[in-house]
């Protein structure tokens, strides 16, 4: 479900009547009534209320265990600009829309049997067509002709983008919640972008935080390049975002202005180097501790781990 769709935003407005849902946020984030999304949402309210009436219980339950990858701004920080306002509004929408998405998520469609070969019989075989090689002589229009048999069903025609399907299949297996995909999706306005500071938690060693220099998009093989300065030495690390050894990826700090190139190789030069990002990580950690007494570790974005964090 598209997080920015009008239906979702209407639910966010409606959720004002459920203090327990947004309880944590009311203290930190002031919801501005003049939000344009809200204005739009009022129009669509009647449509969304159907969903709410049927699924109020479900709405409440997953809200406590929602992934908080997107909540990255400090809650105490005053609203700086429209951009952050809209982002927060989107986050609240997403928080609720996800619950709806989980309700309406269809089960896996049964594997179709298109590619399998049906047991053929001679009777079922189609008679061959004729391919005629013509002449220009109107009296004898046919030079010769051959019987041409019909080909078997084509896997290439049925699945022209086999590589894309392979990627989708593997991503479904490795990223069951879709959180990792959303975090780097081009269509997601809250996605991580080059220039942001990200922290990657792996199953070995300490988490690595650094400025994202580039995102190498290659389906299930998508990777990010992070750069930090440790003990005055520049360190760059590649991480495969769908790797099972990557337990979590968090956005520590968002670049205030979108970078105007996809690969920020100039950040390796001393003039543009961000240097050590530990102070950003520390600020992010302190901001997170507002909500949680246990501020260590990161959100995994994987199934079954979220409950531990909250």
């Amino acid at each position, binding site marked *: 479900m598209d997080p920015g769709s009008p239906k979702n935003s209407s639910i966010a407005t409606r959720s004002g009547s459920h203090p327990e849902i947004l309880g944590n946020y009311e203290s930190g984030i002031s919801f501005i009534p003049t939000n344009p999304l809200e204005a739009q949402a009022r129009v669509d309210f009647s449509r969304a209320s159907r969903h709410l009436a049927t699924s109020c219980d479900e709405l409440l339950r997953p809200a406590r265990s929602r992934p908080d990858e997107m909540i990255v701004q400090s809650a105490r920080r005053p609203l700086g600009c429209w951009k952050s306002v809209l982002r927060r509004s989107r986050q609240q929408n997403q928080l609720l829309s996800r619950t709806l998405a989980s309700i309406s998520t269809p089960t896996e469609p049964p594997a179709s049997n298109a590619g399998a070969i049906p047991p053929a019989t001679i009777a079922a075989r189609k008679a061959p067509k004729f391919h005629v090689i013509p002449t220009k002589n109107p009296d004898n229009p046919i030079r010769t002709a051959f019987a041409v048999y019909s080909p078997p069903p084509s896997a290439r025609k049925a699945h022209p983008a086999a590589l894309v399907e392979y990627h989708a299949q593997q991503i479904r297996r490795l990223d069951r919640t879709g959180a990792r995909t959303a975090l780097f999706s081009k269509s997601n306005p809250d996605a991580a972008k080059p220039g942001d500071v990200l922290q990657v938690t792996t199953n070995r060693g300490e988490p690595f935080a650094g400025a994202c220099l580039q995102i190498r998009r290659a389906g*299930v093989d998508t990777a990010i390049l992070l750069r930090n300065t440790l003990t005055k030495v520049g360190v760059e690390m590649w991480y495969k975002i769908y790797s099972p050894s990557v337990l979590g990826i968090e956005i520590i700090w968002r670049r205030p202005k979108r970078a105007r190139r996809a690969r920020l190789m100039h950040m390796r030069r001393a003039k543009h180097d961000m240097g050590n990002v530990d102070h950003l990580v520390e600020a992010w950690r302190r901001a997170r501790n507002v909500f949680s007494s246990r501020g260590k570790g990161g959100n995994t974005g994987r199934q079954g781990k979220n409950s531990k964090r909250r």
Partner: protein
Amino acid sequence: MAPRLPACWAAALSRATTVTHQILITEHHALLPRTAKRGVKYGWNTTVPPRSKNGRFNQVSAGLPIPTAGPAAALKRKEKTTPLRTGVLAVKKGVSAMYHEGRRTPCTILQMDQVEVVASKTRANHGYWAVQLGCGEKRPATVTAPMLGYYEAKGVAPKQHLAEFKVRTEDGLLPVGVQLQPDWFKLGQFVDARSNSRGMGFAGGMKRHGFAGQGASHGNSKNHRTIGTTGPSQGGGSRVHPGKKMPGRMGNERVTVQNLKVLKVDNETGIIAIKGHVAGPKGCIVMVADAIKKDPPAQTFIDKMTKKLLERHPDAEARLEEARTRHMELKELRKQGKIADVVPQEALTPPATAPVRL
């Protein structure tokens, strides 16, 4: 067996002989017809077919050792490196990775499309055992008439690519017309992938053969990437030896990558994922076959897959026979110029729009 020539042939010729128009008569032997069969009509050359089988007495039965050269010896020599069963044709779709038990494995994604057995080659008729496969489909308008006749006789649709896979014995042959699917390979088995590498065009010696090039300075002028001298000096003959590595066309040649593990097979999408990389650009044709340097898959698996194949196409033999009969009839009609009689009227009018080619 051909009669041996008389030993006194030369002697007889030198003596008095009578040559009539048709028959050579000597003292002892006569009545050898003067036909063009015996003489060399168009001069001596090396391509003239041998007029006697000189090796006909060189038999094992005559006490000679088993010959180490010749077709039978060649087959015997290559027996161990010839796979038990045929490989398949696939199209390279691209490169990705697969995660299994926490480990990342780079892999190549191949897709099989309409891979069918087109013909079998036999020891008796062709000198070796092989399976001819075709893949893809081709519009009949782009196929030559001889090949249309070929496909007509086999009862299969015209194929975009044809390739041949040698097999060790007759047991490796498959009925014509059966379709191979990715499950022909067992998960985890090893395969060899043969394909044409990416063409680099005309490349210099540094790129093509890894020559060192020449210095950037010290008086070097306009010769930084040239290959330098090509022939050794006096001791080496002062000439360019055959096979000297020089600039030229690079790439687009057959490359075999051996011992790649099969990671995934999917009949639904036609996908085969194999570990590692395969030569060639995306979209190139890859011949995938059981690895020759590893053990073939278990015989039980081979038998199972062959059986499954025959179950999927229970009437392959009958279809082939039907197609052959039909082909002979049509061929006769074509010879007589009466093919128009059997062509239905709708086949005469060309289709309004050409079919979309994939």
